[in-house]
């Protein structure tokens, strides 16, 4: 028996600050964003509001696939499912069928807003098993933390060269 094959897409939601006239709460973020590499990374990877949840993500992906690839593309999305999403780290895993996952990836790239909140969705890894996605996610997070630590050390003047 051949088993049903899937693709698991690991993605993260980045939230760049917006110009103050569009969104008032971001005024401070907008100006302090570019102070150093670590503030930039921390702002981009900040925890997302509760309005961004698995249901909202699925809906906006479906909407975008429908918009860009029409009914033809939307037909492939029957097995689309958000397996895991964490608001604290803004990371998640999506499951979809393995034949036409390119459409899902393409549509995810083009998403601009979820629930009128401006976001960048960045797909970092595509895998056949959910376990590999998980491993990759933890590896990626470790790297990120190391980057921030190195930068903060450098800012304090302890480290001169990288």
């Amino acid at each position, binding site marked *: 028996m051949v088993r049903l094959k899937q693709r698991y897409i690991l993605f993260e939601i*980045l939230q*760049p600050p917006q*110009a103050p006239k569009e969104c008032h709460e971001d005024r401070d973020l907008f100006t302090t964003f*570019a102070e150093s590499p670590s503030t930039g990374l921390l702002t981009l990877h900040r925890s997302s509001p509760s309005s961004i949840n698995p249901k909202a993500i699925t809906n906006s992906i479906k909407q975008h696939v429908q918009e860009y690839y029409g009914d033809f593309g939307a037909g492939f999305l029957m097995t689309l499912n958000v397996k895991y999403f964490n608001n604290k780290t803004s990371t998640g895993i999506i499951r979809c069928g393995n034949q036409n996952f390119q459409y899902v990836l*393409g549509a*995810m*790239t083009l998403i*601009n807003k979820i629930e009128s909140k401006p976001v960048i969705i960045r*797909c970092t890894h595509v895998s056949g098993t959910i376990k590999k996605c998980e491993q990759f996610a933890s590896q990626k997070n470790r790297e990120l933390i190391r980057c921030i630590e190195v930068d903060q050390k450098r800012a304090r003047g302890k480290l001169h060269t*990288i």
Partner: protein
Amino acid sequence: MYDLNVPWPRNNYEKLTDEQVVGLRNVIVTLYSLKVYKVAINFEIDESIRLPVNSPQEINPIKVPEIIDVAKFPGLSVYTRLTVVVNDSSKLVSFNKFQNYFDLVAIKPVSEKALQLSIINLNIDLISVALSSRLNFYLKHKIVGQAIKKGVKFEICYDSLISSSSSMSRKHLISNLIQLIRATRSNGVVIAGGCTDAINVRSLNNIVNFFETLGLKRNKINQFIENSRYVLMNGRLRINSYKQVIALDDDDELLDNSKDDPMGNSVVNGYKKQKRKGDADEQTVKRTKI
């Protein structure tokens, strides 16, 4: 990674407002966080705008230290780029004069004739085809191939793909993209951002995911990065070498712009030339010591 197009918020020589400066800085930092370390700020003008030829410091309005403190971001280097919208390439006689003031020089042809003539006549690094509106000419493989043979690359900007809200402009964009991919046969293409807002920034891998569904070949992704590098190298060679052929430095040193004079204060003939002479002197001194 490279992004050769971060638009300068103005199309003329007026000063930027504080908000625009912060916006530009945020785009660069967002790119930096996505591991894009070589960024070129693109100053796009119409051919009818007169450049201030008499005051050389002002030809290049992009003063990098005023926008971002590069020293805080290890590995980041910011270059400057000029894009001229060309309708009638016979007007561009003085084009060669201001080439020395920018790291990269690009054109944006509006008609087929402009494209053809500027490929033959002008010494440029990049051609950026206006993708977001209807192209009023057919991109022929022969002309495009001629350009690629000469070493000029074509640029694909993905900004309007993400930001545009009307389906009509998206249709134009996608049809133009397919045309460009067909005419270039996926060779000699550079993928650049052109993002005016940090929200439209995407990593190269992700954007290739979308282009793949349009028929761009994924296995050429390394070539795209290599092409951007090639374009940057070509532009830097123009300023830092003898007749664009001979340079004393190796590749990494050529791309390193930390020794340049970004404010352009001390120079008359192109703001980077002077520096080169100083370097050459150093080299000769070293040699005589040996």
